[in-house]
């Protein structure tokens, strides 16, 4: 009985000590981790959708509230004026959510381009949505974006319809957020 008690006490002591120290460490590192993720995961996609930026979209980011969600928006300046913004949308693919960074031209509400941030689609099939052949279709496209099978202008990749539709719905989600947030965005950066 005594042995049992000491086992339980020691185990719970170790677990609570580890729990407390990890929770503290987690709090201390959270802002650093967020900055690193932005720079390394979203950063390359942002550079792809706004290649000619003369500001630092990642550093000038702002978070907006929409229906209780926190949406990160990245401004894209050219010649000192706000030319566009980039924000991320998610859509369901074959192997989980597909994250797509979408750039919007604030002057005429068309798309600047898209860059895939996160996905776990089958390599060689669904993963082709990250290739220029697919993403190029979105450059300069007018909203609303829709796949050709549903009456739009975006061609799905043959053999990877689900992934293509997932990417399109991610773009649509980002477009909806953009349209809802546009007044606030213009106010924040103009």
């Amino acid at each position, binding site marked *: 009985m005594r042995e049992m008690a000491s086992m339980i006490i020691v185990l719970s002591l170790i677990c609570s000590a580890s729990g407390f120290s*990890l929770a503290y460490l987690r709090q201390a590192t959270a802002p*650093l981790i967020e900055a*690193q993720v932005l720079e390394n995961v979203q950063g390359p996609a942002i550079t792809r959708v706004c290649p000619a930026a003369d500001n630092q979209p990642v550093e000038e980011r702002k978070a907006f509230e929409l229906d209780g969600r926190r949406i990160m928006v990245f401004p894209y300046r050219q010649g000192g004026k706000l030319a566009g913004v980039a924000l991320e949308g998610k859509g369901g693919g074959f192997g989980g959510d597909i994250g797509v960074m979408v750039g919007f031209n604030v002057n005429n509400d068309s798309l600047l381009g898209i860059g895939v941030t996160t996905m776990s689609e089958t390599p060689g099939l669904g993963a082709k949505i990250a290739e220029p052949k697919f993403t190029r279709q979105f450059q300069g496209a007018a909203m609303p974006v829709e796949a050709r099978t549903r009456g739009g202008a975006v061609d799905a990749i043959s053999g990877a319809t689900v992934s293509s539709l997932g990417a399109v719905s991610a773009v649509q989600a980002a477009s909806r957020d953009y349209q809802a947030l546009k007044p606030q965005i213009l106010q924040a950066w103009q």
Partner: protein
Amino acid sequence: MASVWKEFSKGLWAEIPPFRVVLGLCPTLAVTKSAENGIGMGLAVIFVLVLSNALISLVRKIIPKKVRIVCFIAIAATLVVAIELLMQAFTYPLYQQLGIFVPLIVVNCIILGRAEAFAAKNPVHLAIADGLGMGIGFTVALTFLGSLRELLGAGQLFGHAVMGGSFKPFTIMIEAPGAFIALGCLLALMNCISIVSARRAGKEPSVNAGGCGCGCCEVKQ
């Protein structure tokens, strides 16, 4: 002081993992695509190994025998989560490169093997010396293997081209088969050295043995 040095230095040559004591093969094979990854993995292992050795040695007297392995795993896992968070915060690209092998440090035989074979039986200063020595030995070994594979497989060292324009890289060396073959040849070379030197000294040679003391390798029947 002499005993501290003895425990520290054995990890650097006489028992250098994974060459002399075959411990922690998974990360050794998986992350040594380049010298830089090797160093990164090695440093992460040093962090976990030194602290886990120290903590386990500190609490060794109050841990009941029956649950000691679970306690060791809990301590090691805590440290691994800590290094995961720190790596995400400071070296995110490296964290992505090493991928799943960062959390897998917790099941690396080196950690549990040293905990069971050394830290649970020795005072704190010796346990830290042992962890530091083994960790540095492991880092040196990973960096060496990583440089070798990067040099042959890509003609580069730490990302800089060093082999000249006429060098045609053996791409296979940075693919999966290259890892096995390079490590196999290195182990054979280590054996060769010890056989030759033992023969000179007129002793029976000992070749590197598997088994790590953590009980995950050999079946005891």
